[in-house]
């Protein structure tokens, strides 16, 4: 395993940096903010006795919606051991979380708080299109999926959201919008598409709170993620 100073363009630093992206989205992701890894500037890896492997990274991340970038120092500890456990990430952002999304988030929240029962699917569609009204729900799906992708990240994975297959809005609970999402995640290393169901809540104040995550066995035969009332 690569140890010491890492080539920032090579896969070890890139995979660890991807885990940082997922972590940052669990903190800051919203219907109007999605963070992406832009560049890795430097990386350093070392074995930590009895714990695993620790990466120190300097990266630049970018908000997909505002296009603003920010440099970030991060640490990622991939735990050792037989069973896969989530990495521990230390990272924070100062500028990107302050981009003014409050008004839009509040407007979205108010609209769907009472007008419940949103159903949507295939975000984006086969041709990469998303209805502008549905874009916030695609972004929300990325933010919520980041909890899964972070949990599943190892030194041998590289996760992205391939598609939000299905969005079902459930009854608003405790002043939080509540959703059931079916997402397709792509792991670059295995090239597999992994199906997950996510139950989570969101509000501008509380952000995304995941209630349940469930990996679905993919039968490799045709499966249709259905809307619940079909």
């Amino acid at each position, binding site marked *: 395993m690569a140890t010491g100073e890492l*080539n920032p*363009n*090579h*896969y070890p630093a890139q995979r660890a940096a991807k885990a940082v992206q997922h972590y940052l989205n669990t903190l800051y992701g919203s219907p109007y903010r999605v963070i*992406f*890894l832009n*560049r890795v500037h430097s990386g350093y890896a070392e074995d930590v006795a009895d714990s695993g492997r620790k990466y120190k990274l300097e990266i630049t991340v970018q908000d*997909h919606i505002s296009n603003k970038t920010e440099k970030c120092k991060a640490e990622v500890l991939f735990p050792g051991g037989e069973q896969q456990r989530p990495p521990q990430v230390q990272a924070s952002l100062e500028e990107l979380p302050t981009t003014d999304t409050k008004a839009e988030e509040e407007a979205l929240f108010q609209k769907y708080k009472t007008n419940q029962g949103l159903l949507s*699917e*295939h975000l*984006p*569609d*086969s*041709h*990469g*299109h998303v209805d502008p009204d549905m874009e916030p729900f695609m972004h929300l799906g990325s933010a919520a999926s980041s909890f899964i992708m972070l949990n599943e990240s190892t030194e041998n994975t590289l996760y*992205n*959201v*391939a*598609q939000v*297959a299905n969005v079902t809005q459930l009854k608003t609970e405790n002043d939080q919008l509540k959703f059931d999402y079916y997402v*397709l995640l*792509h792991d*670059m*290393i*295995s*090239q*597999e*598409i992994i199906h997950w169901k996510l139950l989570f809540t969101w509000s501008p104040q509380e952000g995304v709170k995941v209630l349940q995550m469930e990996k679905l066995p993919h039968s*490799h*035969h*045709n*499966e*249709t993620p259905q809307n619940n009332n079909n």
Partner: protein
Amino acid sequence: MLNSAALGFVVLLSAVEAATNERVNYDYYKYHSMPEISKWMTQIAQNHSEVVTIMDYGQTYEKRNISLLKIGLSTGERKKAIWMDCGIHAREWIAPAFCQYFVSQILQTYKTDPKMEEMMKNMDFYVTPVLNVDGYLYSWKDNNTRLWRKNRSPGPPGCKCDGTDLNRNFDANWGTVGVSSDCCSNTYCGSDRVSEPEAQAVASFVGSRKEDILCFLTIHSYSQLLLIPYGNPNFIAPNQDELMEVGLAAAEAIKAVHGKIYKVGTSPAVLYANSGSSRDWARMQGIPFAYTFELRDNGTFGFELPENQIQPTCEEAYSGALHIVNYVHDKTFKGPMDGAGATAAAALWTVLLAVGVTSASM
């Protein structure tokens, strides 16, 4: 009476326009279904018959033709060639879009750009817009098939899944690394090396012309990378330094178009180790320049790249591909272009001319 005469006139005008209109009316910035691409190939070959022929060089598992466009000025002699294939993985829709764009560009520019004209004279371009025809068709079937990757041959007996990863099926360190023997896996390398008809078609066509092929480009998405051989980290191409140098220059050319960064390196360094790729097989055949292009994006949309990114992606990739093609062409037909080379060439010519004069006078 006036109206019908006017209408007749308009119809006549349209007919004349259609007959003389050499340009194929095609939107290169939308994704096209397989039937649309096949129809486009036929029209291109018809409208540019002086330089384009269609060659069917194999059949898919489901018995569909695998076709390429052979593009070049006929000299009546055996020519060197450039190979480009797109769509070996069904879900990578931007790749076939790029092959179509590439074809339209070289056909447009060779008439006015002396460099492209020269290249068309010296070389043929073999471009396969969709290699994995069955897979590509399947990915268009419905919303549940969009992310299909492999071909559509059935799995081995007892397997409940279909498809082999064509880019793990070639005879290049086959089955050693970055593959799965699980027939349901997306990197299933097949029951044997070159077990798949699509891989056999490429191996047969390219194999029989390998002395003539200067450059093998295979187009994929996504990740924004230019990958050089080999996928198995235990093997290093003898010209790896040159491959890197040319690749880095191509990445600079790409960046100059729309600012996108493409990383350059061997698969095991930059992405992951793998074996049985068409690029590795081509290099092992002795084709000196072999690159995998991984086009946009970096994971934001992944395989489902929005159509409004087709144009910029094609423009930048064209710039990169052209850089490699130019380099390979000049290296073959102009020799080393550094100062020492030019001086040596001049000295050689002086000697040859002197010898020629001497022998002629005898």
